[in-house]
C-alpha cells in the first residue's frame, strides 16, 4: 500500500497537466507560457501538457492582474479543476497587480481569491522561470497528495531532496543548457513586491 502511494506521488510529480487562464493580462506572460512548450524550452520533458479543459488539469496557471470581470471566472475554473490541484501565478501582475495597482477596474491581487502555491515573478517572466515554477508546483502537488491520504511526508522527503529541481532536463538541440539557466532564476516572490508592500504600509 505504501508502495502504491509513493508511486502515485511520483506520478503526480512527473505528469503536471496545465490549464492556462488569463485574468486580464496584457498577453506578455501568455506568450511566454506558450514559449515554454516550444522546441527551444520543451517543457514536455517534465511531462507537462497544456490541456484544453480545466477538468483535465492539475495545475492552474493564472496570468494577469485579476480584473473585476475575471473574478467570477477564476472561481468557476478553480472549482472545475479536480483535486489535488495547485495554482501558479505567472508574472508580477497576479502577485502584486504590478503597474495597475490602484486601478478601479481591478480586484487583485490573485491571492485574495484563490490560494496560490507558487509565484513566478517577472514582467514577463522568462520561459525557464515558468518551467521552474511549474516543476515546483508539481512537487507541492505530490506532497499535498501524500498528506491528504494521511501519510507522513517523511517518505517523500527523500524524493524531494533528490529531485527538487527538474534535473532530469536534457539540453535541447537548439536551446542552451536549461539547468544552467534555471539556477539564475529567482523562485519566490520578487523583492520588488516586498518593497512595495512596505512602502504601502508606511504610507
Amino acid at each position: 500500500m505504501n508502495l502504491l502511494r509513493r508511486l502515485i506521488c511520483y506520478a503526480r510529480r512527473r505528469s503536471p497537466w496545465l490549464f492556462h487562464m488569463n485574468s486580464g493580462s496584457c498577453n506578455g506572460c501568455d506568450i511566454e507560457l506558450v514559449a515554454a512548450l516550444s522546441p527551444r524550452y520543451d517543457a514536455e520533458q517534465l511531462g507537462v501538457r497544456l490541456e484544453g479543459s480545466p477538468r483535465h488539469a492539475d495545475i492552474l496557471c493564472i496570468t494577469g492582474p485579476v480584473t473585476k470581470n475575471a473574478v467570477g471566472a477564476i472561481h468557476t475554473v478553480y472549482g472545475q479543476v479536480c483535486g489535488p490541484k495547485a495554482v501558479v501565478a505567472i508574472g508580477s501582475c497576479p502577485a502584486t497587480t504590478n503597474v495597475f495597482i490602484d486601478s478601479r477596474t481591478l480586484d487583485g491581487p490573485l491571492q485574495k481569491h484563490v490560494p496560490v502555491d507558487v509565484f513566478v515573478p517577472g514582467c514577463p517572466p522568462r520561459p525557464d522561470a515558468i518551467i521552474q515554477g511549474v516543476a515546483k508546483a508539481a512537487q507541492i502537488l505530490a506532497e499535498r497528495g501524500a498528506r491528504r491520504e494521511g501519510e507522513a511526508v517523511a517518505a517523500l522527503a527523500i524524493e524531494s531532496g533528490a529531485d527538487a529541481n527538474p534535473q532530469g532536463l536534457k539540453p535541447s538541440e537548439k536551446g542552451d543548457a536549461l539547468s544552467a539557466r534555471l539556477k539564475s532564476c529567482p523562485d519566490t516572490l520578487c523583492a520588488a513586491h516586498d518593497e512595495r508592500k512596505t512602502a504601502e504600509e508606511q504610507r
Partner: protein
Amino acid sequence: MNLITALARFLIFPGLLFAIPAAWFFLWVERKSVALMQGRVGPPFMQPFFDFVKLMAKGTPPRSGIAGALMRAWPLIALASAAGAVGLLPVLPASGGFEGDLILLLALLELPSMCIIAAGFSSQSIFGEIGSAREAALSVSYNIVFLLAILSVAASQHTFRLEALAALPSSPLRLLGVLAIIVCLPAKLHLNPFSLPNAEQEIYSGPMTEYAGPELAMWELSHGLEWVAATGLVATLMAPQLGAWWLAALVFVALSFAIVILLSAIASATARLAIDTTVRFYWQCTLIFAVLAISSALFVRYRL
C-alpha cells in the same frame, strides 16, 4: 481446451497483458516521434504510464442521475470493446479457441468512436456536443472508405474469417485494400490532419471536455488500445505467413511499430483540416481508390 486458448488470447497475447503496455508504448512513440520531428527532446519513456497513474488517483466531479451513470459507463464500454478487438487479432497461427470474424472485429473497432459521440452528447457541454457532431461527420466520411477497403480484402480472398485471411498469402489486390485502410487510420485515431473531434485550440477537448480523473484515464487507455488494434489489423493483413509463433509475434510487433512511426510522421508534418475539407477528401479523393479496389476484387472473384 478451446476455452483456455481463447482466454489466453484475450488475456495474454495479443490480449490485455501485451496490449496495455503496448498501448502505453505506442502513445509514447507517437509523442516522442512528434517531439523529435519538431526538434524537441520529448517526454520520458514512462510518461503515458505516469499520466495513467496520476489520473487514476485524481478526483472526479460529482455526477448524478441517468446522465451521470451514462457518462461513467461510456469510457468502460469503449475500453472493453477496444480490448476485445485487440484480443481478436489473428496474430498467432492456428491458435484455436474462439474465432471471431472480420465483421465482429470491425464492430468492436467502431464501438469506441460511437462511445465518444455518445459521451460528448451526454456530457451536456457545448464543446462536447460540437466535438461529437464533428466525430459523427468524420465517422460517416471515413467509414465508407474503410469498410469498402475491408470488403475488398475479404472479397479478394473469398472469406470473412480472420484466421483464414491471416493464413492466406497476400495478393496485389489485398495490398491496395491495405493502403486504403492506412489512409483511414489517421481519422480513426484522431491524428493530425483529421484531429477534428478533439481539436484543442478550437473546442477545448471536444467530447472529453467534462471528463476527469479515472474516467479520463479509461479514455486514454482505450485510445491506446485502439492504436494497438488498428495498427495490428493492418499488420496482420500485411504480415507474411510464418510457421513459428515467436516469429509471427515478432513480425506483428515490428509491423505495428512501423505503422505507428508512419502515422506520427504524417501527424507532425500536417496541420488540421477543416471538417468540410475532410469530408470532401474522403468522399472525393479516396473513395475512388476504395471503389477501384472493391470492383477489381469482385471482378477477379467472378472471373475465376
